[in-house]
């Protein structure tokens, strides 16, 4: 029994170690590919970046805005029902900044991007690999690391940073609209409270989170997208890609919050 338990832990540790080593070698291969970046024309990636930004950023605007509006409203509803009514107008801005801009904005945006684009990236690359498209590219001398991963990272960073800003603005608007049903606050006063509550540290933290999420989401999804060797493994690795990215995103979010606010 004990031997089985020890061997179980040993095998798990070895498999995790192997996975980490494999992922590290994948990252290193991407980093090594950067030295060929000078030889590649930007126009090669341009279309991919545009298409990826359209899919990850522009097409996600409606869903991000809807979720942001509801999230802002929910935060304000909770605040107005839990906090005392008198004098609450002075704290709504602070509350929205603390909850929406610092935490919910980047995290919910990342979750939306993971569920929409992360799964799509993993599936697309898996299918490309299964249909030997990637092999063909390698055979004609295209660096697939650069051609597949880098444009997606750039598009993802642009999209997530843009979506975070839009999420925050729409959530503030939603919060303001909901707050009008209970307490009257002029838009000027609300805006001033928000501006006073915001600090450059919040902006820095949001951008750092956006950049880190923008790098990790496509990198992990590409890593798992390149894994399947048969078409039956595609859903397994897509599911793994989404779950692992989710996990890493939450860990990164906590780490950045600790770094900036603790």
């Amino acid at each position, binding site marked *: 029994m004990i031997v089985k338990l020890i061997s179980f832990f040993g095998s798990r540790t070895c498999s995790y170690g192997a996975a980490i080593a494999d992922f590290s070698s994948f990252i290193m291969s991407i980093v090594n590919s950067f030295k060929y970046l000078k030889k590649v024309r930007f126009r090669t990636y341009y279309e991919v970046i545009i*298409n990826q930004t359209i899919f990850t*950023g522009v097409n996600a605007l409606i869903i991000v805005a809807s979720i942001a509006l509801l999230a802002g409203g929910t935060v304000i509803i909770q605040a107005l029902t839990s906090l005392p009514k008198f004098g609450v107008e002075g704290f709504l801005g602070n509350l929205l900044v603390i909850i929406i801009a610092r935490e919910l904005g980047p995290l919910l945006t990342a979750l939306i991007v993971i569920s929409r684009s992360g799964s799509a990236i993993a599936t697309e690359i898996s299918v490309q690999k299964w249909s030997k498209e990637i092999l063909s590219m390698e055979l004609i001398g295209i660096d697939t690391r650069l051609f597949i991963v880098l444009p997606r990272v750039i598009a993802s960073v642009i999209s997530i940073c*843009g979506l975070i800003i839009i999420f925050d603005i729409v959530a503030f608007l939603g919060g303001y609209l909901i707050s009008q049903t209970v307490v009257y606050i002029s838009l000027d006063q609300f805006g001033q409270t928000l501006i006073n509550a915001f600090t*450059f540290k919040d902006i820095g933290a949001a951008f750092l989170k956006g950049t880190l999420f923008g790098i990790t989401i496509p990198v992990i999804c590409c890593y798992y997208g390149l894994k399947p060797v048969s078409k039956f493994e595609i859903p397994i690795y897509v599911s793994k890609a989404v779950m692992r990215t989710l996990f890493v995103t939450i860990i990164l979010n906590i780490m950045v919050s600790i770094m900036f606010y603790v």
Partner: protein
Amino acid sequence: MKRLRDRNPNEFRVGLFILVPITILLMFILLKLGYSLSGSTIDVYLKIDNISSIKKGTSIKLKGYDVGKVVDLTPVYRPALHFLAKMRIQKDIELHEDCSAIILNQNIIGDTVIELRNPYRRGKPLLEGDVIEGLEYVNLEELLKEVNKLLTSVTSTVDVLKQISLESRSNIRDMLANLSNSVGAVNNILQKSQGDILTTLSTFRDTSKVLNEISKELKKNPMKFILKGKKEETQEGKTK
């Protein structure tokens, strides 16, 4: 614009997607730095001796309404160390150059604000770069120190009064006892001399009757009354 949009709609959409958040962010940073997008602010300076309660971002209010904020604090070393707080105020707010600025706390735990007050007799309007003088500095800490000092003084006065009352308690008791004795003595005297008083009063009454009779007699025969005594004297002289 339409041609550009039609030529490559994806590029146009991505461009918009990048530009809109960047514009929002820039606007926000400008507002955070205290700039107004419409250019409707002026920068004026506030001369202060102490910056312990003022910091960048401190609100400036007029009649409780937010009219601007402190955007910078600069030390001035001569003639004596003081500070200039750069205040960015809305241009459309009517302020005069001899207005006063009072640093005060919004409430007991609230942030410090600068309250601007226009003078009763208004002078020239406040212009860009003007320095507001005559600052009245109300520091909550100082105020609490003063209140504490006052309370200490009141407590010591009450202690002194208490001591005095304790010391003079026996004297007051003696005085009250003496007063009681004196009242008793006066009462005794009044009781003892009650009979004498009645006799005196009856004598007064008799005397008044006699005087009444004399006055009646005098009214009836004044000459007889006057001469009566003389006749009696002469008769007495004759008999002698």
